[in-house]
């Protein structure tokens, strides 16, 4: 199975006065795994539903494999979709749920194919169970098997992990990536969880108010955010006062390169906690306010004059950074965005 290209051209969709999609363009390469990320109400789910044919766009075009499918109803678009939760047919067993789509296509070997799919998602032993006899994670696995069984041209995942608890979420997330790589289906994954998006996708699209702010590889999204919104939305950022000097911004005594040219001289720089370095020093410029343990890496909050700075440090250094300790705060010269 090889993937097909997907193209959304100039999609518009308004609900009353809200622009859910505001001239959205998105191109997905064949076999690519793209995650749409954004705050709730940014239009990411609407984009996915328009692609699925479950929602009509006011204007614009949906191309799948070069074919214009804008006018096709959902049942003829050949898309596999996994919903947020509770989308399995309650009156059918796991196996019958997976067979459903195949039987509509009149496939002769549908039972074998369904069993294969359940095996692929790792719950072949629960084939005869009904949805209410399965845990949330198992239900979503069945839903994934059901969506993939029909060999869809595009796989659509609408926040499939958001109803699951943290541990199952991470496990299933990695599994979804593994399965997607294995079957090679072009996939669009919608989520509001940035960690999820950055962890699984080939490219992440950050959406805001119906528009795509940036579409790039996870590392690029994180390290070179195209807009202040992306910088603030993805990852944690310190908002620190800075003064623009030429192509650089001076923050806490350190000159940092700018990602984009600034329009004024006094700005707020967005600095990642991991580029803040903290060293205990009796006549340092800051003082540790609080520390919080987060596993291998911990968070330290420091006051530098009037400013609060959050830094990320290795947990083994936490002992030397007890609250009240005088420290020197320096910044690594990585490019920063300004808000």
């Amino acid at each position, binding site marked *: 199975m090889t993937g097909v290209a997907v193209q959304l051209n100039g999609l518009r969709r308004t609900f009353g006065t809200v622009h859910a999609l505001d001239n959205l363009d998105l191109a997905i390469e064949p076999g690519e795994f793209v995650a749409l990320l954004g705050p709730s109400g940014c239009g990411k789910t609407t984009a996915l539903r328009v692609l*699925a*044919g*479950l929602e009509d766009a006011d204007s614009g075009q949906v191309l799948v494999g070069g074919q214009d499918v804008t006018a096709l*109803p*959902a*049942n*003829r*678009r*050949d*898309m*596999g*979709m996994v*919903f947020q939760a*509770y*989308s*399995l*047919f*309650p*009156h059918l067993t796991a196996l019958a749920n997976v067979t*459903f*789509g195949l039987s*509509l*296509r009149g496939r002769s070997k549908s039972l074998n194919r369904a069993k294969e799919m359940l095996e692929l*998602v*790792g*719950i072949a*032993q*629960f084939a005869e*169970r*009904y949805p*209410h*006899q*399965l*845990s949330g*994670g*198992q239900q979503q*696995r069945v*839903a994934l098997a*059901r*969506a993939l069984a*029909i060999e869809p041209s595009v796989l*659509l995942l609408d926040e499939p992990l958001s109803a699951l608890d943290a*541990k*199952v979420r991470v*496990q299933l997330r990695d*599994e979804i990536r593994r399965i997607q790589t294995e079957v090679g289906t072009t996939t669009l994954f919608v989520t509001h969880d940035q960690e999820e998006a950055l962890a699984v996708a080939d490219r992440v699209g950050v959406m805001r108010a119906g528009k795509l702010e940036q579409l790039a590889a996870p590392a690029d999204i994180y390290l070179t955010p195209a807009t202040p919104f992306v910088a603030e939305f993805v990852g944690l950022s310190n908002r620190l006062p800075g003064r623009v000097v030429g192509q650089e911004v001076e923050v806490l005594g350190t000159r940092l390169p700018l990602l984009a040219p600034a329009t004024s001289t006094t700005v707020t720089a967005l600095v990642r906690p991991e580029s803040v370095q903290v060293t205990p020093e009796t006549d340092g410029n800051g003082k540790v306010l609080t520390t919080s343990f987060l596993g291998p890496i911990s968070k330290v909050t420091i006051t530098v004059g009037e400013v609060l700075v959050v830094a990320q440090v290795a947990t083994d250094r936490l002992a030397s950074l007890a609250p009240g300790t005088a420290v020197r705060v320096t910044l690594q010269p990585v490019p920063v965005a300004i808000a």
Partner: protein
Amino acid sequence: MAGVIARRARRQRAFRWTVLIVLGVFFVLPFIAMIEFSTRDSTTWPALFNWPELSERYPALAEGITASLLQAALTALLMLVLLVPTAVWVRLRLPRLRRLIEFLCLLPLTIPAIVLVVGLAPVYAWVTYFLGGSSLTLVFAYTILVLPYAYRAIDAGLSAIDVKTLAEAARSLGASWATVMWRVVLPNIRSAVLSAAFLSVALVLGEFTIASLLNRTNLQVAINFLGKSSATMSVAVSLTALLLAFVLLLLLSLLGGRRRSGSTVDTVATAAPVATKEPAA
């Protein structure tokens, strides 16, 4: 202290039994009277269960029974055909209209049958003109009459499932709307559909006012008519009709009960997957 509690419990128990006995007598006494009266003529009951004899001796009654049974079946069918797709469509596409539809469906409950007839009479003049004066044409009026009960039952059934997500899942798997209804929605609201149908049947079997005032015949009209010539037979038929309605309502509550006990079985069964860990695969 313990004495006070024991005395209070005793008093409550006595009160409960008194209420139960008084109500029991209130309900059972008419039945006993009916049984006693209908058995005074020993030929009554055998005749009732001997269809050829019944239709020969009481042609109007036989006609009424046939008419009522057909009306009941057709009303249930027409109600389902109209109401189920409408309720589903409203939930899927027009959620804002839900309150309005509910209000419309409950209206017949607030309008007395006699008022309905006043409104229906001119309409039925046309119905008679186009479709003839058959008693089966009452099905149209009855479908409206059963709406409040049927709507409630079906709406409750639809509330128990996430119709929108299930329909969308089925659509994305390639199902046509007919397939969505037939293979996804209906199997999941089966007991709601059955209770709506049973309620409709029970209601239609007991309907008198509209049929009588529109000069149609049904079971109740026939019983009323028979009461003037053969009192014991009319009481025997009334009793049978009552028992039939009882059986229907009993089946209905059993159906609901089975669903409830079914879900307790489910909770027992779900205990297993909770214990088994998420497969690591």
